[in-house]
């Protein structure tokens, strides 16, 4: 069904045109109840079991705004360096579509609660400031299932089924100002912005911002202008681009598509477009309605929100250290390169590493285990690092056991494996599996004697002063003890037995 679009190469597109982007991100807040009524927001409930007269839009019902919803909006605004409105109202956005049973979405129009901010993002070692136009409060829509069409899509469906559990869940929509000057880095800047915003939202604790769960969704506006021209071109709006990788791909695709249309003497139609996860393409959707078609007007059922300045300042004082600042601090503390820090970030390892350090492990050891053995295992099982069944305290204990000489790295890996298999805490595993290093001379001595007896040639070399050859005998001892020998002590014993000075 995907219509093949003409594309020009990315390089050719960038040689002739300058991309301008606008990103609209919707964040579903993690409140217990909906934005304007007390219905639960718990996921996974049976269809239409979390609705009430207010979110169903029944006559006579009255909405009342969720205090935590407003507080979250102010926090997001402050974290994005926005001004917070002294007084603002909700507005009705009227449209005829069954995903909202009220026939309008309660939103904000010309009086957003937060406006004029910015978010700094890092792209390949360069800082890029993305300016924020506004962040406003609104509500999510219901979930439609289209029945009868060949592909389960809206086109060709015979009828649709609506579940309104999601209708009314608090959303914050964050809109950037036009992002100019990113040039060829536009796709990376878009991705970095959404990633940074996600980290910020998580740090604020206002939402888990899990894109794969639809808790954070991105619309990508893109236009091209010939290089050197001031005036923006006509934009397209690609809806529901719901992963970081997809944001990057959607921007790239639209740059190549626009360039092909414009380069061929055509014009871009202002329309919404659908993004296709399978191949990273976009296809035409509906022609965008004009704002006036939504017939916005102030919501008469909700009174204005006027955040007191003292309250705003109180909230500002509770803001956590922001993710980018925290990353810079940790990178300096850990003494690692930009590239290494980026790997830690990409692996989702920052929080586990910090927790492990807090549990007493040295930073380099915490980093080594999370970025090495544990990252490998998370990768193998396709889970996130933070979802592995091992706690920071357990990893810290493994580090301590290595530091005190009870475990070497090889044994430590076995302990970690056992902890992941649910065999208990590191100390229990060491006990049960008998994994501690053997450094006790009587136990080691036998293995050393055997190794010398089995390798008389090597032993002679060592007696002749080739001390480096001892490594081969240490290897034999390690093998005989299945890796549990204290290698340093084994070497000492070997040299002692053969009468050589180390």
């Amino acid at each position, binding site marked *: 069904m995907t219509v093949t679009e003409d594309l020009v190469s990315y390089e050719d597109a960038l040689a002739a045109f300058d991309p301008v982007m606008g990103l609209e991100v919707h964040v579903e807040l993690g409140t217990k109840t909906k934005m304007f*009524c007390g219905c639960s927001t718990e996921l996974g409930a049976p269809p239409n079991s979390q*609705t009430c007269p207010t979110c169903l839009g029944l006559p006579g019902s009255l909405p009342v705004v969720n205090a935590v919803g407003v507080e979250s909006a102010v926090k997001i605004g402050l974290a994005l360096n926005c001004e917070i409105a002294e007084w603002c109202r909700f507005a009705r956005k009227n449209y*005829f579509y069954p995903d909202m049973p009220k026939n309008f979405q309660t939103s904000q129009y010309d009086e957003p609660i937060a406006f004029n901010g910015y978010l700094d993002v890092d792209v390949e070692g360069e800082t890029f400031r993305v300016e924020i136009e506004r962040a406003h409060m609104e509500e999510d829509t219901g979930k439609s299932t289209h029945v009868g069409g060949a592909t389960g899509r809206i086109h060709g469906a015979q*009828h649709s*089924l609506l579940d309104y559990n999601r209708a009314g869940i608090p959303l914050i929509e964050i809109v950037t100002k036009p992002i100019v000057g990113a040039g060829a880095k536009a796709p990376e800047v878009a991705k970095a912005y959404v990633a940074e915003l996600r980290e910020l939202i998580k740090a604020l604790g206002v939402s888990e911002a899990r894109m794969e769960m639809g808790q954070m969704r991105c619309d990508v506006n893109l236009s091209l202008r010939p290089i050197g021209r001031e005036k923006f071109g006509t934009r397209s709006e690609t809806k529901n681009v719901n992963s970081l990788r997809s944001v990057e791909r959607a921007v790239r695709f639209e740059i190549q598509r626009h360039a092909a249309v414009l380069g061929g003497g055509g014009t871009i139609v202002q329309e919404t477009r659908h993004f296709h996860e399978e191949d990273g393409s976009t296809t035409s959707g509906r022609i965008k309605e004009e704002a006036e078609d939504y017939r916005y007007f102030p919501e008469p059922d909700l*009174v204005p929100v006027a955040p007191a300045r003292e309250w705003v300042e109180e909230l500002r004082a509770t803001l956590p250290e922001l993710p980018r600042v925290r990353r810079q601090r940790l990178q300096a503390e850990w003494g690692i390169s930009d590239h290494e820090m980026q790997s830690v970030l990409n692996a989702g390892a920052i929080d586990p590493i910090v927790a492990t350090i807090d549990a007493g492990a040295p930073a380099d050891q915490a980093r080594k285990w999370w970025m090495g053995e544990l990252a490998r295992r998370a990768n193998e099982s396709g889970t996130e690092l933070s979802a592995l069944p091992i706690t920071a305290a357990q990893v810290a204990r493994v580090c301590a056991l290595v530091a005190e000489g009870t475990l070497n790295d090889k044994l430590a890996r076995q302990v970690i494996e056992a902890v992941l298999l649910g065999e208990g805490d590191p100390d229990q595993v060491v006990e049960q599996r008998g994994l501690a290093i053997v450094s006790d001379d009587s136990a080691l001595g036998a293995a050393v004697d055997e190794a010398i007896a089995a390798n008389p040639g090597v032993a002679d070399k060592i007696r002749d002063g080739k001390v480096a050859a001892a490594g081969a005998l240490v290897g034999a001892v390690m093998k005989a003890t299945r890796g549990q020998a204290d290698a340093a002590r084994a070497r000492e014993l070997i040299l002692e037995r053969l009468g050589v000075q180390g």
Partner: protein
Amino acid sequence: MPGITREEVAHLGRLSRLELKVEELDHFAAQLDEIIGAVARVSEVAGEDVPPTSHPLPLTNVMRPDTVRPSLTPEQALSCAPAQEQQRFKVPQILGED
């Protein structure tokens, strides 16, 4: 006086998904014109010092705590639905094939 054109009525009809007959367009255009004209008289008496009012009461910040309250049962929620299927509201085809 602003004049409401039949094109504007037709556009409003489309947005509201109302099927209007040709003769209704003129009929409603005249009626809507009259209604808007009547309402517009308010702005004639309101001076510069009278801001547009969206709320008659001088209230702000009426909020509720984030505490769950019982919802309707799915049966209650669906009781007025003209059609339902799989415990969901059933609505006609939304978009035609295109």
